[in-house]
């Protein structure tokens, strides 16, 4: 067959040679503004050769037939034109710029013009991502797309975000499916992706994402990396910036003097000895000033792109490094990237696309977000204690065993991980003709993740939980192996190597044809086979010499006989087999219909429920193309509706099976003896979550320059996959035991999205782009598992109450506790209250009797109530980009309104430092109605109540940038095409009433959203950068 094809090509070639009549067509290609267009590809239809227009837009091309030959004119960003010669040998052409709704959008196994879309999509250009100057693309997406809420899980370099497309719809993995050039990327792995490599991002929000079936329920983010252009000279580009970061906020903490006064009062009222005889201690140690530091950030990107007639390429190198505002290099994130995109027309019919992304990213981390984190220790450290004692040793804070000196802690932390990642695809597209193509591709995503933790012998003072040494001489603890046989434990190092290999094979046919110039039919049919394998090997070595990080490798261990050293490993495989069909019909680009059917089989589920069908239907109506539509100021109007089903299979592997992976270890004959125990009980009927989503939307263009898109959606998720707390009697709470994964309820998200975009372009000296989006989402749990009233979520304080819940009729993870009503001022007030509040004294918080039984019940939940939720009522994003002559200014504001946060970073311990508001504590009748008295005696003031819930609404100027572009004519002389310099600032201003470090607080777990454990805040960054093109 191939031979025959070859002969045919040869024959055509020879034929054209033999009968050559040396006919040439020439002409000028120009824009609508009558300016010659260079680098337009001009080609004779059906032939694989062509020419490009010169700098003034002229072309000259050899043709074989002056009547029937068809010329194709093609330039990116312009409408493609095909013209039959009809005897003309001089042919001038005007190419029209593509209007917005004619631009190409990647929709999954194909592309579409935005005018023909029936789903709710938002496309973001790469420039808007790059402009944000951030390490991770998810950070740049915040506020850019209506319906996509992004909250930062940690402000530390390399910290992830939680991406929520159209609300929280599940407990477990709410992350959307992320595809980079068609290759599956998990959101954790986004650290590897260089934001500068991105050409565009398309977010599929509604059921039309159902072409991705079982993984589409949380929406799909399609990232395309930069490609070269056909027929363009090699263009070399350099972008770089340098900056300094500092904390966006410090907390108002007590000074040493305030601290001493308050602690004396606290112990005195508790009937205990007063700790400070002298309270005249001044400001004391401002721990935050020493913990937070100014930290550098820089990024460099070098790329070369271009193309010839048949080949386009884009090759890039990138380097990014960012130190942390806490710990500097101890929380550094660095990344090296290399990318190659290559597309080539191997023949007139066969095209190859190759993408190769290599990255090496390393991250050092400090403990964060919880008890024992550096910031937790910083907030709670005693202000009366210096950082170092006069003898130079770090000071101890011995009164509280779980608060250690944060400066010493940072010094002793060694925690690194490195990921080497190779992501790519090889794609072959065979076009049978203009209508039918057959695509086969192999995608791969290979990641090698190395982690290392060095635990030196450390001493933080008597009785500290974090001590690994026996005393301040850093003597090693010994371990008795057998009577009389003792060995030193010494410093330890833990190493872990994990490998993940994803392979996807996809094969699909695309058909597209227009009949009678008005009936357009598109069809897609194909299969996808996915496999992920992961394996890991880890080990711990003891007795690292000299207690020094210089020897922090297992190979250096000196553990006698290797007795203490231990190893671990795991392995898994998961697979997915899918087939899909999509049919679209358009009548004159005016009436649009599409239908999708996908079938998935997933190895994550048992034989009882392994396969699922995911259908979707959608329709669109371009109202403005109707003859009767005569509204002058509306240039474009389209109505859309879609409804469909998609799934979520993001649960642990083998969750349907009961495995003996629990821990069953006991001591017989003084030796640790390994047994077996059930880990997670089985659930053979486990099935995937399904999301049914209705989307009604409209797109308008007003007065040519104002685009407006709105969507209303109802998204119902059924059979949520979750591992909720289960009853004790199941017996799954032993060591290594977990509750079973169950299908645990239903959730509904309803919302409205508005997107406005205003552009003024074609003025010579002035252009402006304004984008504004608003999202409001109502989240509600519609069903909990049978027989259960609610599923408990995150706890408050240490060993405290359960503060969040999953309960029918409320938001996922809403806050549940006592409502407060001020402070009891006098005993008479308590007696006259009419409600018995056991143990209350003047100065205590007044709780509200919710059930009206005349008594505050502390032994059950009958007086607890709804106290808020971490889900914002509204989110806003505002982007502006204004250019005047050589200057440009751009900015991005993000705001979330109506979210609450639980203040949970205060250690409720007598000696722990406290926030400045405690200065206004209750000290006697009439002193305050806000804050309770301080005392070491038992009170109910520390129960979870509305006192600990704060308004977390905020507005943040995420980025502002001012740039200057040097005039082109002058640059031309030194062979530079463009040169721009800019200064930029991230997180410059944040408006909020929240007292904690950062109100932009994400959580990877739906039920602990909005619980602030001492959050690592995002940095305020000042940067300067240059962009240079040759």
């Amino acid at each position: 067959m191939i031979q025959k094809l070859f002969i045919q090509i040869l024959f055509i070639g020879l034929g054209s040679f033999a009968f050559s009549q040396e006919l040439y067509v020439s002409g000028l290609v120009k824009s609508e503004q009558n300016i010659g267009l260079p680098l337009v590809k001009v080609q004779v239809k059906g032939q694989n050769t062509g020419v490009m227009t010169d700098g003034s837009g002229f072309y000259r091309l050899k043709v074989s037939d002056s009547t029937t030959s068809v010329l194709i004119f093609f330039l990116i960003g312009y409408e493609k034109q095909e013209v039959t010669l009809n005897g003309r040998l001089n042919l001038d052409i005007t190419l029209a710029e593509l209007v917005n709704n004619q631009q190409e959008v990647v929709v999954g196994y194909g592309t579409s013009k935005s005018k023909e879309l029936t789903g709710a999509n938002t496309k973001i250009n790469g420039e808007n991502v790059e402009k944000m100057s951030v390490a991770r693309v998810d950070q740049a997406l915040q506020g850019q797309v209506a319906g996509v809420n992004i909250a930062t899980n940690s402000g530390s370099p390399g910290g992830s975000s939680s991406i929520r497309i159209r609300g929280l719809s599940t407990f477990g993995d709410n992350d959307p499916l992320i595809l980079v050039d068609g290759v599956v990327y998990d959101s954790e792995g986004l650290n590897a992706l260089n934001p500068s490599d991105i050409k565009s991002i398309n977010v599929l929000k509604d059921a039309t994402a159902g072409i991705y079936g079982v993984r589409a329920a949380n929406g799909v983010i399609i990232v395309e990396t930069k490609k070269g252009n056909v027929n363009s000279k090699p263009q070399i580009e350099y972008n770089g910036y340098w900056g300094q970061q500092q904390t966006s906020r410090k907390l108002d903490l007590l000074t040493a003097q305030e601290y001493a006064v308050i602690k004396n009062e606290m112990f005195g009222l508790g009937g205990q000895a007063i700790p400070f005889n002298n309270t005249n201690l001044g400001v004391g140690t401002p721990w935050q000033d020493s913990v937070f530091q100014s930290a550098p950030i820089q990024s460099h990107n070098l790329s070369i792109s271009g193309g010839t007639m048949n080949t386009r390429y884009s090759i890039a190198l990138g380097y990014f490094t960012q130190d942390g505002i806490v710990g500097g290099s101890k929380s550094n994130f660095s990344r090296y990237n290399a990318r190659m995109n290559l597309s080539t027309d191997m023949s007139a019919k066969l095209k190859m696309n190759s993408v190769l992304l290599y990255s090496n990213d390393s991250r050092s981390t400090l403990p964060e977000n919880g008890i024992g984190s550096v910031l937790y220790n910083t907030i709670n450290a005693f202000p009366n204690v210096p950082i170092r004692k006069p003898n130079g040793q770090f000071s101890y804070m011995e009164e509280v065993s779980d608060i250690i000196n944060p400066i010493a802690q940072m010094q002793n932390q060694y925690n690194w991980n490195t990921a080497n990642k190779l992501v790519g695809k090889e794609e072959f597209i065979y076009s049978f003709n203009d209508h039918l193509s057959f695509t086969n591709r192999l995608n791969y995503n290979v990641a090698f993740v190395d982690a290392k933790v060095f635990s030196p012998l450390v001493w933080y003072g008597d009785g500290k939980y974090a001590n690994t040494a026996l005393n301040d001489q850093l003597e090693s603890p010994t371990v008795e192996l057998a009577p009389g046989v003792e060995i030193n434990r010494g410093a330890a190092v833990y190493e872990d190597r994990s490998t993940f290999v994803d392979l996807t094979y996809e094969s699909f046919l695309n058909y597209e044809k227009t009949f009678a110039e008005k009936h357009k039919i598109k069809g897609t049919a194909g299969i996808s086979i996915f496999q992920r394998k992961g394996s890991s090997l880890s080990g711990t070595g003891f007795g690292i010499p000299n207690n020094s990080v210089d020897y922090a490798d297992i190979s250096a261990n000196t553990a006698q006989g290797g007795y203490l050293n231990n190893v671990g490993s795991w392995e898994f495989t998961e697979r997915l087999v899918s087939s899909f069909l999509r049919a679209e019909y358009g009548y004159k680009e005016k009436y649009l219909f599409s239908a999708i059917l996908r079938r998935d089989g997933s190895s994550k589920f048992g034989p009882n429920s392994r396969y699922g069908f995911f259908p979707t239907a959608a329709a669109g109506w371009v109202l403005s193309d109707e003859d009767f539509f005569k509204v002058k100021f509306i240039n474009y109007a389209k109505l859309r509706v879609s409804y469909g089903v998609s799934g979520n299979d993001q649960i642990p592997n083998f969750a349907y099976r009961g495995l003996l992976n629990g821990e069953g270890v006991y001591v017989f004959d003084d030796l640790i003896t390994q047994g077996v125990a059930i880990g997670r009980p089985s659930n053979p009927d486990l099935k995937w979550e399904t999301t049914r989503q209705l989307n009604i939307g409209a797109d308008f263009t007003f007065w040519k320059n104002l685009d407006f898109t709105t969507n209303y959606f109802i998204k119902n998720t059924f059979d949520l996959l979750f591992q909720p707390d289960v009853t004790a009697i199941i017996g799954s709470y032993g060591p290594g035991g977990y509750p079973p994964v169950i299908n645990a309820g239903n959730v509904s998200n309803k919302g409205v999205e508005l997107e406005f975009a205003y552009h003024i372009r074609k003025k010579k000296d002035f252009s402006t782009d304004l984008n504004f989006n608003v999202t409001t989402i109502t989240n509600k749990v519609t069903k909990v598992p049978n027989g259960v009233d609610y599923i408990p979520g995150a706890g408050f304080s240490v060993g405290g109450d359960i503060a969040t819940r999953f309960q029918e009729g409320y938001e996922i993870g809403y806050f549940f506790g006592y409502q407060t009503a001020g402070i009891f001022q006098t005993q008479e007030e308590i007696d006259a209250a009419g409600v018995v509040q056991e143990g209350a004294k003047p100065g205590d918080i007044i709780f509200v009797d919710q059930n009206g039984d005349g008594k505050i019940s502390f032994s059950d939940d009958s007086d607890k109530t709804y106290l808020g939720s971490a889900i914002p009522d509204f989110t806003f994003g505002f982007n502006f980009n204004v250019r005047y002559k050589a200057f440009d200014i751009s900015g991005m504001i993000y705001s979330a309104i109506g979210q609450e946060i639980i203040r949970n970073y205060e250690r409720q311990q007598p000696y722990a430092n406290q926030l400045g508001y405690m200065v206004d504590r209750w000290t006697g009748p009439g002193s305050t109605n806000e804050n309770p008295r301080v005392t070491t005696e038992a009170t109910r003031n520390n129960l979870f109540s509305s006192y600990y819930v704060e308004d977390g609404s905020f507005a943040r100027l995420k980025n502002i940038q001012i740039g200057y572009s040097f005039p082109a004519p002058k640059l031309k002389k030194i062979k530079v095409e463009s040169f721009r310099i800019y200064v930029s600032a991230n997180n410059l201003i944040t408006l909020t009433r929240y007292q904690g470090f950062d109100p932009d607080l994400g959580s990877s777990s739906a039920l602990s959203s909005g619980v602030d454990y001492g959050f690592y805040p995002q940095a305020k960054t000042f940067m300067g950068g240059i962009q240079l093109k040759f």
Partner: protein
Amino acid sequence: MKRIQQTLLFTGLLVLSITQTGCDKFLTVDPPYTQDVENFFQTPEDYDRALTGAYDMLQASFLTLWLGEIASDNSIAGGESVNDSPGLHQIDAMNHGGVNNELRNVLRWNYTGVTRANYILENQDNIEFPGKAHILAEAKFLRAYYYFELVKYFGDVPLIVDRRIGIDEALQIPRSSKADVYAQIELDLIDAVAVLNPVASQKGRATKGAAQAFLGKVYLYQNKFTEAAATFDEVIASGSYSLIPNYNDLFTVANENNSETVFDVQYTGLEGGSYGCLICLEGNAAVGFQGIRQYNGPVYGDGNSYNLPTQELYDAFSSIDPRRNATILDIDAFIATQPNPASITYAVGAGGHTGYYNNKYIKRQGEIGLPDNDLTSPVNYRVMRYADVMLMAAEAHYQLGNTSTAQQLINQIRARAGVPGINVNSIDVIYKERRYELSGEGLRFFDLVRTGQAATYINGFVVGKHELFPIPQVEIDLAGGNWAQNPGY
């Protein structure tokens, strides 16, 4: 050209159809290198390993070492502050309710123990092999142990025997009566007594004597004095046990598993641990928690000042009773006797301070495990000492009118302790002797409740309510909300 197109199309369709038929096989992925719950128990070794898993939950008993004392008049909760482990402070103050993490752990961990024992017994008929009966007997002993813990704390509890339950059934299952639970415990222990060897094949395993002692205790808790006395007599008559000469040696690691040991929960310091998972520990968390706060000096290690003996307990002892100082550490008096006392420091926790520490289970130099060594103490929990068996036997006999037997047993106990004999002329003498001998060992609260003395000795104790602990409200909700809370809560 046409043919190529057709061929390609055909190939495409072929690929489509193949993948759909070969799908099932491709999608059946077995977890590598792990055994499956449903096809385990193929070899004797499998039974043995599952049994080790069932023993593992014994280590949760450190909670009883705390709660049995803190709930009683013997000690206060202590600790860093009243907000640190509020569940313990509430129980101390007798104002505990349906929100209590410690009680939730008691329920969860003991039911895990029950489940692990049931898992073996559910599969008891899979294969036959020599020694199987002994494994099953150990499993029954363990199930009885866990149910006894549950019934002591909560009274009526769901009784699940020889099977595991699924999530749906768990929402339906009612609480069984205390009597039914006790009946099952007796049944299991009687079976265990019949099979278990008098001497354990490995230190730490259940023996015939241990099963008998627990059976006697279970009878005593139900005031079945005749059966209790007879059972304790068998233990005594077996001659397997004797009191060790020196009371002071009872609680050191060096003297573990001695002639007085009837059953110990075994702990080791060989594995490190952290607060994240107390049930994952192989060490005894109670010991470090009960250590001296921020202590820097000889003999002892530093700890978290929990479970502090009261002045009342200290004063209850005769000043000539050596068991006072063996049970209670008077920290200031101790420091004063040391060389260079000024160099010895410790701190007072805001959760309470009495000046006394539990000297039986306390962190000592030379008995320190791997980090975090507040959690990894190698000190075993002596859940059944021969002295306890003798005291319980004395009590049962006295109730049956055999005062001379009781008198003789009590005086053996007193002689070993080094105090003069006493005239056992009332049951109260025996109760008091139990307190002198066994304080600090997690028994006091349950003794006071079963003997009807709790209201007399415990401040705030409400008769008809505090005999049982409340079932955590969240557990009632998670079990389908059908259980009634214990009375009074």
